């Protein structure tokens, strides 16, 4: 992001950036950054809090008048320290079709919740690299096979598509999880629910470990789940 700021300033555009990793902002020597010590993934701080988000923007824009660059100012407003390893309480409706693996049943049971969240978000989603919601059962079955020791090639995947498939599964579960709670949980609480509290999340972790142990490329297994859940 800092590299872009440099290009834009050189082209005659005034810039101000929100820094969320301070050391990076310092190293790249971009002109103007407001540093925000907010959870990674939430640089404006608080979802559904327009007043707080506007306060962040006003603080950032106030730096535009300054030419004593490079400068990094800390956001002076209310800090947020809500990233947590606690698990959100997302209750999945029971589904027990004996024809399916428990993880497949779980994923299918989440479909109404996923649909509600998609509608609430005006179609905004992180699902769609490899599959859409209609293919969720097949996607989970591939992860079951990888966790059992199959290779990506055995289930019609390569390294990049294995990684992309796991991102899709996480998106489906996390977005469905949002529809199962009555508020936006603190950062990473739904992530922790997915990786530690669901059948599919635990299978993704197991599959990543299997691929690592089998000597798969680092860029495949490493990016299948966040470092916070490794």
């Amino acid at each position: 992001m800092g590299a872009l700021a440099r290009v834009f300033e050189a082209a005659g555009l005034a810039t101000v950036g929100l820094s969320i990793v301070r050391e990076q902002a310092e190293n790249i020597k971009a002109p103007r950054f407001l540093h925000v010590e907010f959870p990674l993934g939430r640089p404006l701080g608080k979802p559904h809090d327009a007043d707080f988000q506007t306060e962040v923007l006003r603080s950032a824009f106030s730096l535009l008048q300054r030419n004593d660059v490079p400068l990094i100012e800390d956001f002076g407003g209310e800090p947020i320290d809500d990233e947590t390893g606690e698990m959100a309480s997302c209750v999945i409706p029971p589904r027990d079709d004996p024809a399916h693996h428990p993880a497949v049943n779980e994923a299918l049971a989440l479909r109404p919740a996923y649909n509600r969240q998609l509608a609430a978000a005006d179609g905004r989603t992180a699902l769609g690299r490899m599959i859409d919601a209609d293919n969720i059962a097949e996607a989970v079955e591939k992860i079951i096979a990888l966790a059992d020791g199959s290779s990506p090639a055995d289930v019609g995947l390569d390294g990049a598509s294995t990684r992309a498939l796991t991102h899709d599964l996480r998106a489906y579960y996390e977005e469905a999880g949002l529809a199962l709670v009555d508020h936006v949980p603190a950062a990473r609480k739904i992530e922790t629910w997915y990786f530690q509290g669901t059948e599919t999340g635990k299978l993704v972790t197991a599959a990543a470990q299997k691929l690592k142990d089998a000597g798969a490329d680092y860029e495949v297994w490493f990016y299948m789940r966040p470092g916070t859940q490794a």
Partner: protein
Amino acid sequence: MGLDGLIRSGVGGVEVPNFEDVPVTDFGDLSEAKVAIVTTAGLRHNGDVSVWSPQDASFTVLPSSMRDMQLSHFSPNFDRTGFAADLNVVYPIDRLDEMAAAGEIGSVAEQHISFMGAQFDATYSTILLDSGPAAAKVLIDQDVDVVLLTPI
């Protein structure tokens, strides 16, 4: 150290080019400025999210009216539920519209831009010499004055 602290300490020291100078543009009046967002969240058009890999230095143009964009960043290392619940926590387009209506900023650009951040060395030269200047031209062609950069 919290969970994010682990990630911050892991990526904070990623090597970057050693720049000598710091380019800066003189700025005038915010209440007359046209503002664009350039985010490194890896946002794409609905249905256009492919297997976007590390070291992709390309960008996507986002019309100001678009709300159904898709998050396609390759990194798993950030919270995604904030954006899923409220896109403004990453891409504050509604907040800019409100600030323009209130006269705090002049106007909101018709088009905004998304790159994918958390890139490594191999993409710096492309961003500095190719896709970055191309993105700047998209903004300059619509008379943008100010760029707000947001990460994810």
